[in-house]
C-alpha cells in the first residue's frame, strides 16, 4: 500500500497532463483534418480516421496500465532481450512485409497494420541506456563508442533497407544523448558544419565555394603559422594546428564536390525533389513543390487567429497531402493561426525541456540515459516534422509524436514516455 501511495506521489503528473493534452488535441485535429462537410461524420465513427485513432488511444491507455503495473526493474533487466526481439521483428518484417508505396516496413495482421520501426526507437533507447549505464562504461573510450555505433547501426540499417529513410534518420537523435554522456562538442559542430556546407553547395556554385574554402584554409593556416616567428615556443602544436585547419578545408572541398554525386546518385528521385523544393520553394508548385507549397498555404492562410475548428479548407479538401499523419501540423496552423501554433510550439518545447529535467534528476545512470534518449527522439521528430511543414527542413515523412494519426507511432511514443515515467516514479529506489 505504501508503495502505491509513493508511486502516485512520485509519478510526474505534469508530464502526464502534457501527454493527455497532446493526445486529445491531436485526436481533434485528426478529426478536423479529414472532416468532410458534405458527410457530417461523427468523430466517433469507427470508419473514420478519428474513430480509429480513438481505438488506438484506448489501446494506448491499456499499454500505459501494463507499463505501470510491471516492475520497474523489468526494463533494465530485459533491455537487451527487448532489443534483440525487435531486431528480429525488423528482420522478419523486412522479409515478409508487403510492398506499400515502396516501403517494406509494415507487418499486416488481418486488419491491423503495425510498423515495428516505431518500436525500434524504444528498444534502441533501452539497449543504449542499459549498455552506457553499465558500471565503469565511459563514453570517451573508443570501444564504448564502437559498441554504441553498433547498437544504433543495426536497427538503423534494417530500417533503411525497409526504405523508411525518415525513421532511420531518427536514430541520429541519439547524438544528443552521447553529447550529454561526454561526446566532444566539436563532433556536434562538425555535423552542423557539414549540413551547412551541404546546403551552401546546393545554393551556390560549387567552384566558387571550393575556391572560397581553399583561400580561407590557406589564409587561416598561414595566420597560424605566423605564430612560429615568436621565440620560445613549441613549434609542433602550431604546425599540427595549421595542418589540421588546412586538412579540414581540403575535406570540406571534397564534401562540396561529392554533394552533387550524393544528391544525384545516392538519393532517390523523390528525395532529390524534396531537397530541390526546399532550396527553391517557388519552382514547380504544381509538381515537386506541391506538397511544401500547399502545406505553407494551409499554415499561412491561418493568419493570426486561424479559420476555426473544422473550418480549414486546405487540409480537409486534400490540398495538403497526408494531412492527418505527417502534415497534421497544417491543421493546427490553419485552424488556430499563429496564436494557436505558437502556443502549441511553446507547450511542446516546455514538454521537452521538462523531460530533460526529469532525465537529469535521475540518480540511476540507466534511467538518465534512457530519459535523454526519449527526449532526443521526441525532439528530433518535433524539429523535423514542424520544420518540413514550414519549409525549414526537407520533407521527411516522420510523424509528430502524439498528434499524427497512426497506431504504431502512438503506441511506440506512449511506450517510450511511460517506461520513462515509470522509471522516474521509482527514481528514489533506483540506486
Amino acid at each position, binding site marked *: 500500500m505504501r508503495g502505491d501511495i509513493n508511486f502516485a506521489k512520485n509519478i510526474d503528473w505534469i508530464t502526464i497532463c502534457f501527454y493527455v493534452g497532446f493526445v486529445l488535441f491531436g485526436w481533434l485535429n485528426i478529426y478536423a483534418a479529414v472532416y468532410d462537410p458534405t458527410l457530417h461524420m461523427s468523430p466517433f465513427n469507427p470508419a473514420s480516421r478519428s474513430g480509429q485513432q480513438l481505438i488506438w488511444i484506448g489501446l494506448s491507455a491499456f499499454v500505459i496500465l501494463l507499463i505501470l503495473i510491471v516492475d520497474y526493474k523489468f526494463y533494465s533487466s530485459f533491455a537487451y532481450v527487448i532489443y534483440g526481439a525487435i531486431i528480429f521483428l525488423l528482420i522478419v518484417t523486412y522479409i515478409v512485409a508487403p510492398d506499400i508505396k515502396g516501403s517494406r516496413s509494415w507487418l499486416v495482421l488481418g486488419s491491423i497494420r503495425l510498423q515495428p520501426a516505431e518500436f525500434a526507437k524504444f528498444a534502441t533507447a533501452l539497449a543504449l541506456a542499459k549498455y552506457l549505464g553499465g558500471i565503469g562504461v565511459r563514453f570517451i573510450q573508443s570501444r564504448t563508442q564502437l559498441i554504441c555505433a553498433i547498437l544504433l547501426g543495426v536497427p538503423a540499417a534494417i530500417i533503411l533497407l525497409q526504405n523508411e529513410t525518415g525513421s532511420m534518420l531518427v536514430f541520429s537523435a541519439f547524438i544528443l544523448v552521447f553529447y550529454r554522456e*561526454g561526446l566532444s562538442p566539436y563532433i556536434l559542430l562538425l555535423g552542423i558544419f557539414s549540413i551547412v556546407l551541404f546546403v551552401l553547395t546546393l545554393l551556390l556554385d560549387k567552384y566558387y565555394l571550393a575556391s572560397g574554402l581553399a583561400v580561407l584554409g590557406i589564409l587561416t593556416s598561414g595566420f597560424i603559422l605566423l605564430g612560429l616567428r615568436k621565440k620560445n615556443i613549441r613549434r609542433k602544436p602550431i604546425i599540427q594546428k595549421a595542418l589540421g585547419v588546412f586538412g579540414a578545408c581540403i575535406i570540406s572541398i571534397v564534401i562540396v564536390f561529392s554533394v552533387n554525386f550524393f544528391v544525384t546518385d545516392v538519393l532517390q528521385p523523390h528525395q532529390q525533389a524534396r531537397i530541390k523544393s526546399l532550396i527553391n520553394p517557388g519552382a514547380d508548385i504544381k509538381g515537386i513543390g506541391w506538397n511544401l507549397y500547399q502545406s505553407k498555404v494551409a499554415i499561412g492562410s491561418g493568419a493570426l487567429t486561424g479559420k476555426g475548428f473544422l473550418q480549414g*479548407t486546405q487540409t480537409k479538401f486534400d490540398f495538403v497531402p497526408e494531412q492527418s499523419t505527417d502534415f497534421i501540423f497544417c491543421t493546427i496552423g490553419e485552424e488556430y493561426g499563429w496564436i494557436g501554433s505558437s502556443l502549441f510550439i511553446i507547450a511542446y518545447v516546455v514538454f521537452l525541456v521538462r523531460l530533460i*529535467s526529469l532525465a537529469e534528476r535521475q540518480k540511476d545512470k540507466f534511467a538518465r540515459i534512457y530519459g535523454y534518449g526519449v527526449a532526443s527522439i521526441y525532439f528530433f521528430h518535433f524539429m523535423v516534422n514542424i520544420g518540413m511543414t514550414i519549409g525549414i527542413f526537407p520533407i521527411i515523412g516522420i510523424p509528430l509524436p502524439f498528434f499524427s494519426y497512426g497506431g504504431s507511432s502512438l503506441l511506440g511514443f506512449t511506450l517510450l514516455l511511460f517506461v520513462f515515467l515509470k522509471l522516474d516514479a521509482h527514481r528514489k529506489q533506483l540506486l
Partner: protein
Amino acid sequence: MFKKRKNIIQIVFILLGIVYIIKLFSLQILDSSYKLASRDNVRRRIIDYPFRGLIYDRNGKWLVYNTSVFDLMVVPRELKIKDTAIFCERFGLTKEAFIKKMTDAKAYSRAKPSAFMKQLSTTDFAKIQDFLVDYKGIYPQQRTIRAYPHHALANALGYIGEVSPKQLEKQTDGYYQQGDYIGINGLELEYEHYLRGKRGARYVMVDVRGVEKGTYKNGIYDTLSIPGANLTASVDLDLQKYGETLMKYKIGSVVAIEPSSGEILSIISAPSYDPNKLTGRNFSENYAALEKDSLVPLFNRPLMAKYPPGSIFKIAQALIALNLGVITPATTFPCNKALINCHHHPSPQDVSGAIQYSCNPFFYMTFKHILEQGKDPNKYQDSEIGFRKWYNQIRKFGFGQKLGVDLPNETRGAIPSNAYYDHLYGHLRWKFSTVYSLSIGQGEIGVTPIQMANLAAIVANKGFFYSPHMIKSIGNKGALPQYKVKHSLGIDKQYFKPVIDGMEQVVLGGTGMIAKIKDIAVCGKTGTAQNPHGKDHSVFIAFAPKDNPKIAIAVFIENAGFGASWAAPIASLMIEKYLTDTITRPRLEKYILDKKFYTPKGETEIQNKKLKPKAPAPAKKTPKPNAAVLKDSALLNEIPKPKALIFKDSIPVTKTPKPEVLISKDSVPIKKTDKPNAIIPKDSSGKNKKERRTN
C-alpha cells in the same frame, strides 16, 4: 560530469521553438499571399444561368421559347461498365467513338465531369434514361437552348451563339464570360440586354480534385439569377407564315406595318431558312451551309437591301409638290411622251389620275415644278434652290436615313443631296434635266423595303408615322420609348386626299387591279424598278382599308418584272389574310404558289420534268393563266425614244452619266455584273459578313 550540458540541450530546444515561432510569424502574419492562395484553391464560382426571355407574337403565340436538352456527363473515375458492347448499343455509339470519348474525358480530368454526349433532345434522352441507373459515373445535365414551334421569321428573330473572343475583349462591363451565349443577330441581338436576364453566381468549395464540397461561407456571396424579360413582338405569326409560303421560291421582301402604331405585322426576307437550323448541336454545320448558299438566306433583305423604288416614289413626289404648292389637286398635265416615255392612258390627268395610271410625264412636270420654282433667273441656281427644298421634304419620309427599326444592320438607303450632285457634276453644273429620273423613282435613289412600307403607312396615316418596330412590349412595360414618338411630315392632311383617291383607283381601275379585294377598299401603287442588269424588280405598296387603315404593306420581288404581276397579288393576298383571315381567291393564290423564280437546290430534275411540258421557263414569260388579269399593267411600249433607254411598263431609265461614280458612291445597289441575281446578294452578303463580325 557533463551535468551542465543539460542546460545547453534545453537551450537548444528553446531556441528551436523560438525559430519556429518567428518563421510562423512571417508565414502566417507577414505574408498574406497564402490567404489568397488558400481561397483560390477551394473557391469555385458557379454561374447560375437565367432563363433567356421568350418571344411571343402579337396574339400570344410562341415565336421563340427555351427547350431542355441533356448533356451526358461522365466522371471517368466513377464509371463502371461491365459490358462495353451492351453499353455502346444502348447509347447508340460505336466502340471506337466510345473509346475516343473516354480518352478525351480522361485527358481532361478523371475526377471532374466532362461532356460525353451533347445536347440530346428530350426524346433521345428518354430512350436512354432508364439505362442510366445501371452505370455509375454518368450523369445527365440539363441545359436550355432556343427553340421555335414554327419555321418562320428566321431573319428577324436572329439567333444566339457562343460569345466570341473579340466580343469578350471589347466588352466594358465584363458581363460575359467564355462559353456564354449571346444574341448574334436579329431580335436576339437587338434585345440581348433584356432577353439575357441577370446571371447569378454561387460560390462553392471544391476539394483538390474539383469535387464540390458545399457552399462557400454559407452562401453569403451568392446571388440569384433573374430571368430575362419576355418580349411581345408585333408580328402576326399566321400572317408571317402565310406570307412566307407565298414568297417561297421568290427573291425579295415583304414588310407589313400597322400604320397607327408602326408595329411590324410581318417582315419577310426571301429566301430565308428554318430558324431551328441555327439552334442545337448542328449549329455550326448549318450555319456554314447557309453562309455558302448563293441565295444568301442569312441576308435580311427588308432592312439591308436597297433598290430604286420605281413608280411607288411618285406618291411621295405628289405629296411634296402639293405641299410646296407647285401643283394643286386640280393641276393637270398632258401625257407628253416626248418628255419621258409612258404608256397609253386617258390624258391629261390631275394628280389622282396620274397616280392611277402611273403617268410618267405628269411626274416629270411635277418634279420640274418643284425644282424650277423661278426663285432665280439662272436655271442652275433655281434647280439648286428647288432641289434643296425637295431634299428636305423627301428626307421627312424616312428615305435616305435609318428608320430606327429594332433590328440590326438597318441600312440608310440613299437620297442624293445637293452636295452629292455638286460632287458629281460640279457646283451649279446640274439642273432639273440632269436629275429628272428621280421624278419617277429611278436614278441615284436607294430605298429599302421597310422604307417602302413606311411610305404606305405615312399615306395611310395622312402625314405621320411611328418608327417601324418589332417589339410592342418588353415584359409588360410596353415598347421602347423611341417607338412612341410620332414623326410628323408637316404635310397638310388635305393633300393626302387626292393621293389616296388615286391609290384607290390604282386598284379599282388602274395599274394594280389584280390587287382588288371584294368589300375591302385597298389603296395601292405599283412599281417596276428598272434594273439595267437583269429583269426588272416588281414592287407594290398598299394600305387597307381606305378608311381607318389597319395594314400598310410593301412587297418587293427581285427580277420578277412588272409590279402588278407578282408584288401586287402577294400584297393583296396578305391584306386579305390579315383583315379577314380567309382567302377568297384560291386561283390567285395558286398562281403565286406555283411560281418559282429560282430552282431550289436538289430539286432541279423534278422541277424540269414538271415544268417542261406545260409552263414556260419561269423567269422569262408571264404565265398564261393570268394573262388576262395582267392586261392592264402589261402595257409595253414598243417604240424606243431617243433619250430613254429601256421601256417597260411606265419605267424608263435615265442614262446615268457616270456609272462608275455611282457605284463607288454606294447610292444604289447596282453593280456592273452579268449575273442578275448576284447584284444584291453579292454586295450585301459581303456587307452582312462584315457587320456580323463587328457586332
